[in-house]
């Protein structure tokens, strides 16, 4: 890539009117009212999502992975049959994630339990067989993996006809590996090229909106998702989604999603993009009712924010990997809540403006100052602590920043480290202890389980 191409990628993608923050009235109304410049939908995955969005439908998706092809196939067929707009997921197992394909093969031979579908160990023909006749224009399938170095996996996926995959140089390196960030970034650049060189479009989703699942304030989630989207675009990918995981406050999340859409339109506007929301990725409610209520909140959030796609969690999230039926239940519940929200949800809702957009924009801009291309900017920004994921133990993360949940449930920076954002008030400035960490990690678990744990159930716990 020549230097002028690199330079070009560091400017906003949509050169049209980039509005200063003040130009958007505080009472924008529902986020979906704001038009989002976006390129034509490309490829099977994105065309399906776009079509459903234009029909006013939220696309729902499970996380689902089984070791053997027969069970995995049954899972895909069951998700396809869901009454609603669903896309399929094949979650890859943890051995494949770390390129330990021998261990995956051994486990397959012995019939040991694996926590996902080992694409490379199964081989391309077997994976093609898995998809044949179930994946299609009306049921695209995404492969989810969590690998910092997914070269082998991406090469296999490109040859087997996968419609989409996900991750990112930061989001699958810092939380999930010991791989040095520069190495992961170089690997992901090649991986993007593998996808970009395919004759058919393979969609790529940034996992940047989910860092560590919880306790990462929205501005950093948004900035990382946008920056990874820019990185994908810089390396030739033209169909991209940016992500955001439900946190601890519906109002804060709604503001965050409006900011994410605005920034995506600004920085990714010349490619095909959409937004995916994740049902809470942290410590989950343990009761079935609590878990469904958590899921319900995320569906309402997705609808209100104009989000195109939602990745759900199930009632057994706190306990184990869900069965196919439990996944189908979660998807159909989400579809039912979606219908209710579209019928009865608030209209003309005011989105609170607390500065998430400006903070995220500041992080994006400050990061891009650190390199001639997005990859080196990301690497250098982390090396200087300008990007700093709170609590993340990876050796290339400064781990100086700290976040805390305030009494109103708002996720705030208690200490931003060296990041160009402001700490928010006195709350949570004391040192984090094992006890306070557990309390914060369990915030949503308590919030959604509380009403369930009354009477006999609560007495049983005391």
């Amino acid at each position: 890539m020549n230097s002028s191409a690199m330079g070009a990628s560091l400017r906003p993608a949509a050169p049209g009117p980039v509005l200063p923050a003040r130009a958007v009235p505080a009472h924008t109304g529902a986020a979906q009212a704001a038009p989002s410049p976006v390129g034509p939908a490309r490829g099977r995955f994105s065309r399906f999502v776009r079509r459903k969005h234009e029909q006013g439908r939220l696309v729902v998706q499970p996380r689902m992975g089984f070791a053997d092809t027969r069970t995995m196939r049954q899972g895909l067929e069951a998700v396809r049959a869901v009454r609603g707009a669903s896309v399929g997921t094949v979650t890859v197992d943890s051995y494949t994630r770390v390129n330990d394909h021998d261990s995956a093969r051994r486990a397959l031979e012995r019939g040991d339990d694996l926590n996902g579908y080992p694409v490379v160990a199964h081989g391309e023909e077997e994976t093609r067989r898995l998809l044949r006749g179930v994946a299609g224009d009306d049921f695209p399938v995404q492969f989810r993996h969590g690998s910092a170095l997914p070269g082998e996996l991406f090469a296999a996926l490109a040859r087997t006809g996968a419609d989409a995959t996900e991750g990112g140089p930061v989001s699958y390196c810092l939380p999930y590996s010991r791989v040095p960030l520069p190495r992961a970034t170089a690997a992901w650049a090649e991986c993007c090229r593998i996808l970009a060189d395919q004759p058919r479009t393979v969609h790529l989703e940034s996992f940047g909106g989910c860092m560590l699942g919880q306790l990462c304030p929205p501005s950093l989630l948004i900035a990382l998702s946008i920056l990874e989207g820019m990185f994908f675009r810089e390396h030739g990918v033209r169909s991209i989604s940016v992500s955001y995981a439900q946190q601890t406050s519906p109002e804060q999340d709604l503001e965050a999603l409006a900011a994410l859409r605005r920034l995506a339109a600004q920085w990714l506007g010349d490619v095909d993009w959409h937004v995916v929301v994740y049902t809470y990725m942290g410590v989950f409610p343990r009761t079935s009712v609590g878990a469904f209520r958590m899921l319900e909140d995320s569906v309402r959030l997705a609808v209100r924010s104009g989000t195109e796609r939602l990745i759900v969690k199930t009632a057994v999230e706190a306990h184990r990997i869900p069965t196919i039926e439990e996944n189908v239940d979660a998807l159909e519940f989400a579809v039912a809540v979606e219908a209710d929200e579209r019928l009865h949800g608030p209209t003309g809702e005011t989105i609170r403006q607390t500065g998430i957009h400006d903070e995220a924009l500041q992080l994006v801009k400050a990061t891009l100052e650190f390199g001639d291309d997005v990859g080196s900017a990301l690497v250098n920004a982390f090396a200087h602590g300008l990007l700093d994921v709170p609590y993340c133990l990876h050796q290339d993360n400064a781990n100086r920043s700290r976040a805390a949940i305030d009494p109103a449930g708002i996720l705030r920076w208690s200490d931003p480290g060296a990041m160009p954002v402001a700490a928010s008030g006195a709350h949570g400035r004391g040192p984090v202890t094992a006890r306070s960490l557990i309390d914060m990690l369990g915030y949503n678990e308590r919030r959604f389980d509380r009403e369930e744990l009354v009477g006999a159930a609560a007495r049983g716990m005391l």
Partner: protein
Amino acid sequence: MDDISLAPERRFVVTSVSSDAHMWNLVFLQLLLEERGGHVVNLGACVPDEVILAECRRHRPDALVVSTVNGHGHLDGLRLIEKLRADPVLAGMRVVIGGKLGIRGSGNARFGAELVAAGFDAAFESEAGLAEFDAFLGGLETMSTRELALVGEGV
């Protein structure tokens, strides 16, 4: 869990297993052990066996604490403990493992016994909560390896 403190200078290596990417369990354990006066070297997520062995040889901890929640713990843990117990330097080191040891929820219980039989000093399945790990920490001063194994059998 606030009233147990360790003798000063207890050194721990905290780690996940090779295929496990979860991190909050490791962040929590570090804080817990530090609050009890322990010194912690935290190896983080997805640590290959060879790195765990090398770091333990370097730091010679009072205990290696393995935490894993991705459901592969019973597989990765068995492989790891075989290597540790075969290592002339580390064969006698205290090693415990805890978390979600399989993908079967309450059906994971049997894995704890298997792991202790294979050489872990104790195994703590998450369904049992923290109390047993606390008991282990409290007993580090006085208990024999055999007693530690009995603590772990409460899985």
